[in-house]
């Protein structure tokens, strides 16, 4: 027989086999402990995926806006931000001449005016479910808007070919975002109805438009939007001298330039200048409390799981006191017993880590829907992104948890005196 060391893969394999067989001795107890660790890992992975996904969703939404600064009517910056990022109904307007005042600012690279209004759908569209009974109408200056968002393209395929922007001077043409077209079941050439209540008038007026193009999916608020020429939108909404927003791209987007620009235009009485970094900070700040609470729940789950693991292994050690004594009599050193018990703990935590990560991946859709149902996050697109890095951190974290939670039971087992342990009746 050849002498090996404990670090020899052959010996390690035998320790692993013994540890796994020990754990299988009490399958229900082991399973429940693994489930406890798994639950903690699921919460942690979902939280990590949410933090990552939400931050990424904000970044993407902001990038896909195409501009870095917005000038809009004074009001809640969060509402302003979410309106632009996700769409919304709490609309405030600023005078149309703001565009003329601001457009020649030397720091501006490009600027586009945007008008946003809300049209009623009742009786006007194929679908009329209560959950979404209005359409976001966005009036745009096509040239300026396309300069801001050069990636916008038209959907291709049967019924969608030959999509285009509006004709010059057209008053009855709309371009639908990807989801808006799907929801309304409209294709190029179809008719789109919108019931628009002009400002100050109680009764809405039904308008009939021709769909001249359907946009490709962008993953932003544009997908759910109905676009029409800005002048037409302003006229139909009865606000010919108003704008909702000015989207601005600065030549140099630095904090210093931003402050300069902001101080220049805050002198206008009715407007606020909102930098999109500020928007991001606002949104992250709004959910940070919730994230902290979820993190606290995750931390509690991890602590409970840790206690559960320690308890399980201690019970197992207690039940096997006599066996451990026998092993020591058979020649097991203190370190060997320590390693055996430690390996059992790490296996439980590793299994919990893998199972919990798998559960988090499988359940990410549910988590995403739940988060969006509970809170208005102000962004469109996926807010839970479970990456290999998140999974790696979770599994490694679970193993580290196992390392620490196994220390005490392993020390207790390894410290038993064989002569006493052998005689112990359980």
């Amino acid at each position: 027989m050849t002498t090996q060391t404990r670090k020899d893969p052959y010996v390690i394999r035998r320790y692993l086999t013994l540890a796994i067989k020990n754990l299988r001795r009490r399958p229900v107890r082991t399973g429940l402990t693994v489930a406890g660790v798994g639950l903690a890992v699921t919460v942690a992975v979902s939280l990590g995926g949410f933090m990552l996904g939400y931050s990424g969703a904000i970044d993407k939404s902001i990038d896909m806006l195409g501009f870095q600064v917005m000038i809009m009517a004074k009001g809640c910056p969060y509402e302003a931000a979410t309106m632009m990022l996700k769409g919304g109904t709490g609309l405030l307007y600023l005078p149309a001449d703001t565009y003329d005042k601001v457009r020649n600012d030397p720091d501006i690279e490009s600027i586009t005016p945007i008008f946003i209004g809300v049209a009623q759908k009742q009786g006007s569209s194929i679908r009329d479910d209560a959950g979404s009974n209005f359409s976001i109408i966005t009036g745009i200056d096509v040239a300026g808007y396309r300069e801001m968002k050069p990636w916008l393209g038209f959907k291709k395929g049967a019924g969608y070919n030959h999509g285009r922007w509006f004709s010059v001077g057209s008053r009855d043409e709309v371009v639908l975002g990807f989801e808006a077209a799907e929801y309304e079941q409209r294709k190029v050439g179809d008719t789109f109805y919108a019931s628009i209540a002009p400002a100050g008038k109680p009764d809405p007026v039904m308008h009939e438009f021709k769909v001249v193009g359907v946009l490709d999916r962008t993953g932003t608020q544009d997908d759910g939007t109905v676009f029409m020429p800005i002048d037409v939108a302003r006229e139909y909404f009865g606000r010919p001298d108003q704008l909702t927003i000015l989207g601005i791209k600065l030549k140099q987007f630095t904090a210093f330039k931003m402050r300069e620009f902001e101080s220049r235009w805050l002198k206008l009485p009715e407007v606020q200048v909102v930098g999109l970094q500020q928007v991001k900070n606002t949104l992250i700040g709004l959910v940070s409390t919730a994230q902290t609470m979820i993190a606290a729940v995750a931390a509690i789950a991890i602590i409970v799981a840790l206690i559960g693991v320690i308890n399980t292994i201690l019970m197992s050690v207690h039940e096997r006191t006599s066996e451990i004594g026998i092993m020591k009599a058979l020649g097991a050193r203190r370190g060997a017993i320590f390693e055996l018990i430690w390996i059992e703990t790490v296996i439980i935590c590793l299994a919990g880590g893998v199972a919990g990560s798998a559960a988090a991946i499988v359940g990410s859709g549910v988590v995403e829907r739940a988060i969006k149902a509970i809170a208005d996050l102000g962004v469109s697109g996926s807010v839970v992104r479970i990456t290999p890095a998140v999974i790696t951190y979770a599994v490694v974290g679970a193993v580290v948890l196992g390392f620490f939670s196994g220390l005490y039971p392993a020390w207790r087992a390894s410290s038993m005196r064989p002569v006493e342990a052998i005689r112990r009746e359980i």
Partner: protein
Amino acid sequence: MSNVIEARGLKRYYHRGSETVKALDGVDLSIRAGEMVSILGPSGSGKTTLINLLSCLDAPTEGSLIVDGRSVAGLSEDDLVEVRRGLFGFVFQQFALLPTLTVAENVELPLMFLEKRVDPAATREILATVGLADRANHLPRELSGGQMQRVAIARGLIANPKILIADEPTGNLDSATGRAIIDLFKRLAAEQGLAIILTTHNAAFGYEADRVITLRDGKVLKEEMPERQPRIASILRSSSGEKSSFPSAPTFCSTC
């Protein structure tokens, strides 16, 4: 043959509150290779304490103890395990098999702790020696008490120890099975030169040994060499310490 164990003035005292319990109170004895020694005595006489000390599972309070040429009195638990490793094989009254391991895995368990590679042929051979060649892949719960004890004996022998310690090895067995186990011990001692120290309540089995030490109140009451066991004389005369191969397989009934 040389002494594998030599004890002089061996004492083991315990403290129970303010009371000092003299579990072993000055025992002198020596064990030779190839000798089967049984320790008899009533409960509380110090049998288990004595074999715990002789097998280095415990340290004496006082006295000298030389095991395989090494003085072990005063060694720490960590040092004692180094002395124990590979030198002793153990057989316990309760068999002490790991229920989740197969017979072969139980037998090979000491090799794992001794960091030795398993030789399946050696495992098969040793299982054949104890008459369990066809039970290698069975779990302990599928065996009778006698079979489990034979697995424990195989486990005690797998690492080629010099000394086999058997604490009440027949205590949980019927007399026929107990007899078969004692016969196996006798063969192992005779054919392998293994020193076997066993404790038993069963005087009939005890007197099958080469030498019988009777304890009472922690002291050696008497030491006998049963007349009908002439083998010890030849062992004592022998100067060869070489181990033979495993003894020929004994004949066990199907259930013991």
